């Protein structure tokens, strides 16, 4: 074979077939040479033989061609393959050919975008397949004209001076590449759908986990709250009464000056954790009232300024937003938690910026808190909203900030989305409905009811 077809075959994404029949005229006999060539994914198959009878050679060629053509990929195609030993005398055909020419049976369903032509004699051959521009057998040389618009390939005759029967081939690179693309795109589509389903499932599992934790938190908060209320009341009463005494025996001085204030501080800390847990568990049944989101952002920023003490820039980009119905104190608490987290993520970085953005988006209002800080990895993103999940050292974080945020968002019938990647900063976007779809009626039963709402957590840029 000339180098050209070889290079074409190489270019053919590893799939090409060729078969040919040749008349080898010796001094006292005539035999038929059959030759098959296939290159599939780097594997090269070659079949060569001599047969007395033309039919045998033709069938062997056909069988050869049929074998690789049974490739599943090729099966999808309905292009025609057939072998003709004389005009209208076909010895083999495939489904595509059968459809095209009208035969009802074939040698297998293995179809391909392959056209096999067997030419006996000479003349102009016009192939039945539109894949071909045409082939001309001329002067014992088969010229396959303009395959794929490329340069014509010349094939030398096999038998000396004899018009050889021939056929071949088609560089399937385009068709196959296209089929592969489709297959890959199809797989991509399936993969994407699978990933989406997976994400929804993960979110549901997370949500369920949070719901269960919420119930637990509500129960614990209530159970702790009562004893803490009388412990606190009694201890502070004791402190006040001791302090009011005109003289105090020396050992009691330390109690008044140190031990009881420290104890009260501990009680206050427990109370604030319990209050956070309760906010996470959303069993605050205070009624909703109209509020201005931008005002709450300003309020949260004022408090945040005191806490971050100029360690980073706090920028606000507040768009016009309609009045919302909700619990403004919870909303500003939520914003404060997000802003403080963002500021922590910027710790020790120069040019740290926390941006708070509000916008109206259709029938939702969104508020986003964005930072260009350390960002989060997958495992952190997955557990963010769990109460007591923290990556901060003991004493620095309780891990309730985002649990409270989650509770507040859920309570307002909203959604929260997180976009973050390590080193790429984080953005928490809260979407609140302009018209709350559920305004939980204040009710007296202890456990908060949980609603499935969507938490979306994505890697940044995904």
């Amino acid at each position, binding site marked *: 074979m000339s180098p050209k077809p070889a290079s074409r075959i190489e270019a053919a994404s590893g799939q090409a077939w060729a078969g040919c029949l040749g008349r080898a005229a010796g001094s006292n006999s005539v035999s038929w040479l059959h030759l098959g060539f296939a290159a599939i994914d780097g594997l090269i198959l070659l079949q060569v033989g001599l047969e007395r009878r033309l039919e045998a050679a033709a069938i062997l060629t056909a069988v050869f061609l049929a074998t690789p053509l049974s490739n599943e990929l090729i099966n999808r195609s309905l292009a025609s393959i057939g072998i003709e030993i004389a005009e209208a005398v076909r010895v083999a055909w495939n489904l595509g050919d059968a459809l095209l020419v009208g035969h009802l049976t074939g040698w297998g369903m293995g179809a391909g975008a392959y056209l096999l032509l067997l030419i006996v004699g000479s003349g102009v051959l016009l192939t039945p397949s539109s894949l071909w521009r045409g082939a001309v057998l001329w002067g014992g040389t088969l010229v396959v004209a303009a395959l794929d618009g490329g340069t014509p390939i010349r094939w030398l005759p096999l038998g000396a001076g004899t018009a050889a029967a021939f056929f071949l081939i088609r560089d399937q690179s385009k068709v196959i590449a296209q089929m592969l693309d489709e297959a890959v795109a199809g797989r991509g589509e399936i993969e994407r759908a699978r990933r989406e389903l997976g994400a929804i499932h993960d979110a549901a599992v997370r949500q369920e986990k949070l719901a269960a934790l919420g119930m637990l938190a509500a129960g614990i908060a209530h159970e702790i709250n*009562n004893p803490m*209320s*009388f412990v606190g*009341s009694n201890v502070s*009463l004791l402190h006040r009464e001791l302090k009011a005494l005109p003289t105090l025996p020396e050992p009691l001085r330390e109690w008044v000056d140190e031990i009881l204030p420290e104890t009260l501080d501990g009680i206050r800390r427990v*109370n604030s954790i319990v209050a956070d847990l309760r906010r996470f568990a959303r069993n*605050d049944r*205070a009624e909703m009232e109209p509020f201005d989101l931008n005002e709450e952002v300003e309020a949260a920023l004022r408090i945040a300024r005191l806490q971050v003490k100029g360690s980073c820039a706090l920028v606000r980009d507040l768009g016009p937003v309609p009045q919302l119905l909700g619990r403004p104190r919870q909303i500003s608490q939520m914003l404060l938690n997000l802003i403080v987290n963002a500021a922590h993520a910027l710790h020790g970085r120069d040019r740290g910026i926390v941006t708070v953005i509000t916008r109206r988006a259709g029938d939702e209002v969104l508020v986003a808190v964005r930072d260009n800080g350390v960002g989060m990895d997958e495992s952190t993103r997955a557990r963010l909203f769990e109460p007591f999940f923290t990556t901060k050292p003991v004493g620095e974080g309780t891990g309730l900030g985002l649990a409270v945020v989650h509770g507040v968002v859920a309570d307002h019938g909203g959604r929260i989305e997180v976009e973050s990647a390590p080193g790429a900063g984080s953005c928490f976007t809260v979407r609140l409905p302009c018209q709350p779809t559920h305004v939980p009626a*204040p009710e*007296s039963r202890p456990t908060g009811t949980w609603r499935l709402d969507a938490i979306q957590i994505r890697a940044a840029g995904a």
Partner: protein
Amino acid sequence: MARILVVDDDPLVGKALSRLLRREGFEVAIASDAAQALVMLDGFTPDLVLSDHRMPGMTGAELLALVRRRHPGVLRLLISGDAERAPSVAGDPDLEFVAKPWDGPALVARLRGMLSPYDAFGEREVTL
């Protein structure tokens, strides 16, 4: 001397509240649920009912709504750890509310403010 009826299903909460209030010069009685409170309203005749919200049986808000109807002259204050504001009960919009855990001096000041016309000692000053 003003009389306060404390209603709480947790006896230690009731005792802590009454201890605090007694020291401030109030006369205090404790009921452990709404049913008992309703009986004591007639016997003890309080000036003010300070009730926990979440209790078995009738809730504090329901109890105080009933007090408003049956004893219009009696003041009412709900105490609860469950909310930031008083849960609303139909037909009872002006229920006052204090959060649990309470702050002793603030609670006392609040009660004095509410009770001032009733306060036998006329004490208005706030101990903080």
